[in-house]
């Protein structure tokens, strides 16, 4: 039986087809438009998306985690087996060369400070983007729930996109189509402004910036004092 309403998740190619039908774009431009749509979606995921991935990864014996290939940005790291998400604390002083199979940082005294008391940390991490590794202390050999921002572009099926993002992709395609067709510079600027407006509207109503998501997520999952 057919669905009653149009789906909220739409394949990226369908958004492109719909755009081309609306703007009477010849089929000739489909491949270019589809590639532009991928770019737009990926950039949105990098900069403004509210969407994040959760993946359970296993830290090795020294507590080192290899980032997933699609990971663009880091949100949080928690023990995978706990019912409550206890986030790990970033510790830039962690020496990746010296972390061992044991939990190395004894925290007992650091739980008392000027601004608060309690919240003994058991989990620390240090992110090294160059090596695409997350070095941890406390997660040795454990399953870890990694929350991160992904490119969002699937490699196992066609990418499905939240339909609220369709106006942003439409505006982006309209702008790029102008460039492909040699539109004058003032027209291109008009279309670019249209794209920026679409992003603002999306951010305002449905798609809070990544940092807002991050703060929001951590504020409800943090156990207390964070150093």
């Amino acid at each position, binding site marked *: 039986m057919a669905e009653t309403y149009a789906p909220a998740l739409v394949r990226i190619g369908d958004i492109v087809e719909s755009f081309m039908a609306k703007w009477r774009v010849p089929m000739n431009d489909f491949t270019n438009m589809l590639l532009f749509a991928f770019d737009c979606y990926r950039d949105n995921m990098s900069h403004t998306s509210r969407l994040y991935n959760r993946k359970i990864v296993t830290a090795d014996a020294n507590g080192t985690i290899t980032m997933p290939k699609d990971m663009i940005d880091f949100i949080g790291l928690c023990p995978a087996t706990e019912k409550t998400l206890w986030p790990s604390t970033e510790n830039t002083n962690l020496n990746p060369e010296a972390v061992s199979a044991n939990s190395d940082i004894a925290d007992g005294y650091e739980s008392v400070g000027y601004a608060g008391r309690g919240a003994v940390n058991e989990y620390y991490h240090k992110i090294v983007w160059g090596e695409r590794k997350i070095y941890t202390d406390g997660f040795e050999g454990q399953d870890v729930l990694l929350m991160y921002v992904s490119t969002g572009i699937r490699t*196992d*099926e066609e990418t499905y996109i939240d339909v609220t993002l369709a106006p942003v992709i439409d505006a982006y395609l309209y702008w790029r189509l102008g460039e492909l067709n040699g539109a004058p510079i003032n027209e291109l600027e008009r279309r670019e402004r249209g794209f920026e407006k679409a992003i603002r509207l999306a951010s305002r109503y449905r798609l809070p910036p990544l940092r807002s998501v991050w703060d929001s997520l951590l504020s409800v999952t943090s156990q207390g004092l964070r150093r």
Partner: protein
Amino acid sequence: MTKAEMRASVKGALRKIDSTAKYHDRMIDRAIEHSMNQFMYDLYRKDPRDLDQYIREYGGEVALAVTEDVSTESYYTDLPAAYVVFPDKQSGVRYVVGHDRDKTVLYPMSITEMLLADRTYLGSSLAEDGDPYTRSFYAVRGSRVVYYNTNSHFRRAGVRIGIVIPFSEYADEDEIRIPFGQEDRTFIAVSQKLAQIPPAELIDNNKDAQ
């Protein structure tokens, strides 16, 4: 107007300088074809989608076969007719649709894009190995179309293809659609073209040097 009628009307309007059959039918056909191609191109420049009116479909009842080129591990279909060349990816092959259950619509791609596609999201993000592709593409290469990202059930079922064919591909009894509003221009252009050819009897035999 059929092809034969069109040819006859041109022939009837040419000057009767010579009692012999001066203008051969094939010469007239060729002149009409050149003019028609020009008008098709004008149409294309105005809006490529207008060419839809002049497409002839092949493989509608009996599907055209999709064949594997073993040496390059690619798939292709030999075109059943010549096409008018246009300066875009589709050229005169305006659409390719599968006979499979999904009636897969293929998207045009240039040869260069096809060479580069494996390194782009077109090659990596429209299906995983072994799963059906959600988007398939074709490129026009000479007298055949070659495919990219096709599924086995599509290849088994074959395709139907819409082609803008030149005047010479039509049979005498076929209806010819002259581009909208171009009837007069077509007729005049063909007449002028043929009028440039001097009759054999008017060669100046009194010239000093032959």
